[in-house]
């Protein structure tokens, strides 16, 4: 089996235009089924299996076994916790279940730190996105909103091929509802239309814009910056902007593909990006950038933490509570990206940014309230202030992406 797997060609999801040819060929029966209002479950499972297999075929075959073991682990854990939760609700058991669910990911993230950057053998492409899904399921079981989960639906949710490797991160109940209810013809036509558009836009984003930025700007800027050296230099600013834009076009393009393929399979996977660089402040930025990730952190980390902190009266001031929660939330996200100083600093900077952003919004509210009392007009809000806000937010996020890129590490320490 291993040898056979190693000999197969490796097909990275959405890696090149040819991939879409293979994908559409495999999707054809599913699309026809959708048109006549039916979901061919067995065919769909086979189709997903083949493409997931090819994702990990060739030199990466070890990852295929890691994936299978991981899915087993998560499914057993989810079902065990569900049967426990039917009778009891001890919070420590809940914490334990969450920990065990995140455990493989924690190992994968920590392993390189203690082993000269060598990747752990239990890791595979997409492990962190699967962890979000399964941890989310366990939390919703604790909440009591998720019941009667079965093996097969769990597996097909976790292993949903279009979003397996890098999201967008869906939620079980939403996904399951879509899966069970094949869209009617009008709605499916809407799906097909949006999928066609998204694939074309994704081509433009990923294979043209991101490619050009990477080859014509990012590469040369990096080279020039490294040649000049020092703590900071002009080409590094070029690296900053080109990397930030590259990241957006590459990842947004990828997300468009994943959403489009989902839709062709009759699943309305949520969007991931909504003009992030038009955000007027950092809070809004996180409602527009990698949305399914930030919403996940908002719902399953931030809100819950605020709730616990408030309930236990940890801080007297609720602004301190939210500030603390921002810090935990964003640092955790930093660690999730990888245990390196630049990812963690990236999380820290965003936490500080969000805290300052909150403070500023409070100040503004207070000022406007005072001005209203005094019979004055509210603070000006016009094209200039809005433009300035967008400009400021854009530049702050670009700077954090420079940190995120790890390029500074190369510039300073190599």
């Amino acid at each position, binding site marked *: 089996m291993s040898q056979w797997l190693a000999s197969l060609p490796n097909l990275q999801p959405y890696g090149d235009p040819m991939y879409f040819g293979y994908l559409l060929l495999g999707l054809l029966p599913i699309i026809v089924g959708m048109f006549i209002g039916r979901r061919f479950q067995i065919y769909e499972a086979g189709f997903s299996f083949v493409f997931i297999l090819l994702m990990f075929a060739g030199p990466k075959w070890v990852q295929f076994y890691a994936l299978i073991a991981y899915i087993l682990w998560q499914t057993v854990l989810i079902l065990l916790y569900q049967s426990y939760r039917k009778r009891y609700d001890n919070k420590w058991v809940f914490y334990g279940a969450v920990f065990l669910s995140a455990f493989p990911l924690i190992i994968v993230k920590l392993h390189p730190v203690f082993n000269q950057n060598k990747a752990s053998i239990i890791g595979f492409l997409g492990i962190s996105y699967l962890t979000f899904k399964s941890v989310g399921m366990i939390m919703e079981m604790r909440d009591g909103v998720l019941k009667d989960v079965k093996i097969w639906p769990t597996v097909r949710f976790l292993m949903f091929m279009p979003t397996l490797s890098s999201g967008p991160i869906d939620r079980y109940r939403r996904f399951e509802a879509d899966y069970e209810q094949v869209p009617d*013809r009008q709605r499916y*036509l809407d799906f097909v*239309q949006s999928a066609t558009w998204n694939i074309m836009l994704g081509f433009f984003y990923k294979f043209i814009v991101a490619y050009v930025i990477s080859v014509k700007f990012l590469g040369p800027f990096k080279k020039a910056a490294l040649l000049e050296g020092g703590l900071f230099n002009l080409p590094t600013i070029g690296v900053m902007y080109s990397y930030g834009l590259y990241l957006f076009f590459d990842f947004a393009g990828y997300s468009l593909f994943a959403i489009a393929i989902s839709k062709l399979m009759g699943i309305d996977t949520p969007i991931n990006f909504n003009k992030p660089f038009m955000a007027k402040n950092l809070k809004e930025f996180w409602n527009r950038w990698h949305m399914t990730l930030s919403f996940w952190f908002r719902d399953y980390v931030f809100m819950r933490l605020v709730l616990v902190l408030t309930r236990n009266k940890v801080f007297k001031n609720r602004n301190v509570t939210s500030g603390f929660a921002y810090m935990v939330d964003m640092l955790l996200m930093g660690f999730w990206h990888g245990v390196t100083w630049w990812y963690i600093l990236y999380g820290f900077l965003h936490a500080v940014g969000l805290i300052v952003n909150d403070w500023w919004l409070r100040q503004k509210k207070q000022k406007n309230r005072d001005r209203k009392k005094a019979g004055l007009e509210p603070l000006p809000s016009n094209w200039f202030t809005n433009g300035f806000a967008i400009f400021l937010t854009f530049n702050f996020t670009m700077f954090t992406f420079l940190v995120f890129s790890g390029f500074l590490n190369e510039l300073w320490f190599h």
Partner: protein
Amino acid sequence: MRKRLWLIFGPLLCAVLLILVVILAANTQPKSNYKVERKAATATSPRVFKSAILKQQALSDKQHRFVPFFGSSEWKRMDAMHPSTLAEGYHRSYRPFLLGQSGSTALTHYFGMQQMLPQIQNKQAVFVISPQWFIKNADNPQAFSIFYSTGQGLDFLKNQTGTKADRFAAQRFLKVAPQGSINQMMKKVANGKSLTPFEKHRINAQLSLVNHEDAFFSKWRIEDNYNKKILPESKKLPQPYNREKLGQVATHLGQQSTTNNRFGIDNTFYNKRVRQSEKGLAGKQKSINYESSVEYNDFQLVLEQFAQSNTNVMFVIPPVNHKWVAYTGLNEGMYQRSVKKIEYQLRSQGFNNVVDLSKDGNKPYFMQDTIHLGWNGWLAMDDHVDPFLTQKQAQPKYKINDKFFDAAWANYRPTASDNFSKFKQ
């Protein structure tokens, strides 16, 4: 619903059709166009190197005789004595078609040649073979990918017949080429398996598409070295041709251009590439070795191809700048042994047109910089190349020796007076 589907897919369909029409309308056998050809012949750029159409167009021109000049970074040294300038200035019956740039090596050329086999069949060529190619890690995937286009790989797959050379080339390809859709077929060739009719069909279909794309895109943005360098430089040549006068002009130009350093290196090159790092380079090349390298095997691929195509090739082995290597500590004995090994590989297989300039690195204004021929060096090369290309030559008889594909040959370190008896046929 049909209207809705048309609204969704109609524009897409139209776009795809439009692209296909535009690409397929491009002529893959363009008529001779001397202006385009002479630009392509002196561009030395990877874009031209990768384009089957440009190479074929020039090399099959009936009115103008372009001769492939294989080499690497020396082609960029376009001074008055550069082969292209001499051919232009003296209106010779041939024009060099320069192939290669810094980073190109034997394997690059082997795959580049696959795109023009009919054009080199029974013809002549010049090949500057630099010992610098034969370094320890000669197989650099990054360098290879600069000069590689899918068309080359496809043409190779189409041309190959499963010989030992073909298998070896496929194996080498898999080591250095980027991941691509043809790697599966390459693997088959490397393992000595034959391709299925379906695969052969696929190769032809893909090749046709690739060539149409090539025809559509390649004629744009060819570097215009012809008008910028070759033509103005050719004005400096004394008319009519007089070898003695030419030597004086070369020496004079060399003198003028090498005034800011003690190595006889061109001023601009010295300023750009040497001045800053000069101190650090003292004694730096002591441990460099060109005697054992997989490049010797790759070079055999090229020779095998020339033999198969019955191409009459003149090989030129350039020297290194003596003042410079005295400073960097490059081992002259090692250099000469590597030249000896190259020459053995050539002559023992019947490649007897060898111009060995390797001992001339101390002649005045022979080198333009550290390792590249210039002024008098170009003329020394021309003394052999011009008669070779303009006078009638006997067709050589090659006898290919597959032992040169072995690792034993690649790794073999010759002695100063070696007779290579181990590798006799």
